[in-house]
């Protein structure tokens, strides 16, 4: 391959006119990685809490609440994330009253970051919601009856019976969704969050040494995924219900 590998672009610390080194681009990658983690983590908080609510609402009896949740899932899951990112960034502020729109665009701290977080969070919430719903539906009707028959109120039935069991069942797909948030956070670059992928692109444009940067990014993704999977396996082991062979086998 006619490519001039030069790993020093990532690690050199002296400005050197002969090699491509103008600054240690390694720092860029570290900073990008930091933003990636921040976006993913903050978005996951939204996705998990909002998704749980949506998932629960999809299983309640009230047709209006159920309808609302269904519409939510339908919209957020059927529009590409990239497009949603654009809509949140450019269209959403225009729909607000003037003052509020201005605040969203300029007033609030880190507008790009929070826009990306909200977009990614609400998008992933539709996924999580579907998982939670599936988890709840996998629990037999009898469990719900038993909980109600003891006098638990609907919220208590979810809080103490349905959700704890449901979360255990859906740990594997939730892990996938979490990794999804992590990977999808790269789309935040389209609205100017300088996360990992954005930084590798910057390095590429500055130095034309893209392969080095991409390799570093790829390795980081793989390492993080491996860590997350390992952690989730431990979590799964921790919450396993004694005597049950496998809850998720349904």
């Amino acid at each position, binding site marked *: 391959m006619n490519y001039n590998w030069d790993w020093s672009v990532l690690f050199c610390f002296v400005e050197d006119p002969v090699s491509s080194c103008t600054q240690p681009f390694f720092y860029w990658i570290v900073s990008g990685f930091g933003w990636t983690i921040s976006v993913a983590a903050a978005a996951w908080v939204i996705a998990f809490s909002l998704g749980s609510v949506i998932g629960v609402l999809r299983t309640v009896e009230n047709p209006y609440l159920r309808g609302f949740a269904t519409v939510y899932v339908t919209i957020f899951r*059927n529009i590409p994330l990239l497009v949603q990112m654009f809509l949140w960034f450019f269209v959403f502020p225009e729909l607000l009253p003037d003052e509020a729109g201005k605040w969203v665009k300029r007033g609030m701290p880190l507008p790009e970051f929070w826009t990306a977080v909200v977009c990614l969070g609400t998008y992933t919430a539709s996924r999580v919601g579907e998982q939670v719903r599936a988890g709840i539906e996998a629990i037999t009707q009898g469990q719900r009856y038993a909980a109600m028959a003891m006098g638990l109120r609907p919220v208590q039935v979810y809080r103490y019976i349905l959700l704890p069991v449901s979360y255990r069942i859906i740990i594997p797909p939730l892990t996938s969704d979490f990794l999804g948030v992590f990977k999808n956070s790269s789309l935040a670059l389209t609205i100017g969050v300088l996360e990992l*992928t954005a930084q590798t692109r910057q390095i590429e444009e500055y130095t034309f040494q893209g392969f080095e940067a991409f390799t570093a990014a790829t390795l980081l993704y793989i390492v993080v*995924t491996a860590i997350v999977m390992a952690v989730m396996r431990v979590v799964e082991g921790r919450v396993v219900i004694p005597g049950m062979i496998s809850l998720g086998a349904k």
Partner: protein
Amino acid sequence: MFENFDFEIIVTSIPFLIEGMGLTLLLTVLAIVGGLALGTVLALCRLAPYRWLSLFAGSYVNFFRSMPLILVIFWFYFLVPFIVGRPVGGFYSVLVAFIMFEAAYYCEIMRAGIQSVRQGQVHAGQALGLTYRQNMRYIVLPQAFRAMIPILLTQAIILFQDTSLVYVVGLRDFLVAADIVANRDNRLMEMFLTVALVYFVMCLAGQLGIRKIQKKFATG
């Protein structure tokens, strides 16, 4: 900003967009078919009694699950020509990347599907004298597929939306085509709203269609 919404740009770019949609659909269908086939084979490997085979399938799946699709496409596109010694062309390179990537996900889905078929069904097929392959073919896989339809659909929708990543290799699917028009003619708002609407309608139609098929299976 909506007062001078430029409908004309949408109308004039329709042929260009339709061409893009053609590629989107073609890639989606081929990647689903190929990914499902490869994924099913992988799932069978994962469940096979040979340790090395299930280990291989397991590592394959974990590897691809840990990579963002965009990086997979990227590496395929740039490294494959280097390995085979000549350009392979964007289309074949992304097609292979998509199939191999999706196969990892379909493998997990199929594995869950196969495992959801009760042991009793497997035993019943065996007790009738069906061989391993016949049992898979006539008893297990048909039930697994049916159980998996909703998840397969979700995955298909994701894939349908993900085809836009072909921009990496310079192919033009629907979203990329719209993006090109938007960039070339500076009409972002118009194009992105159109894209949102088109994807929404198509995914919804797909969803409703599948639900119908599912109902038919349920009564059948």
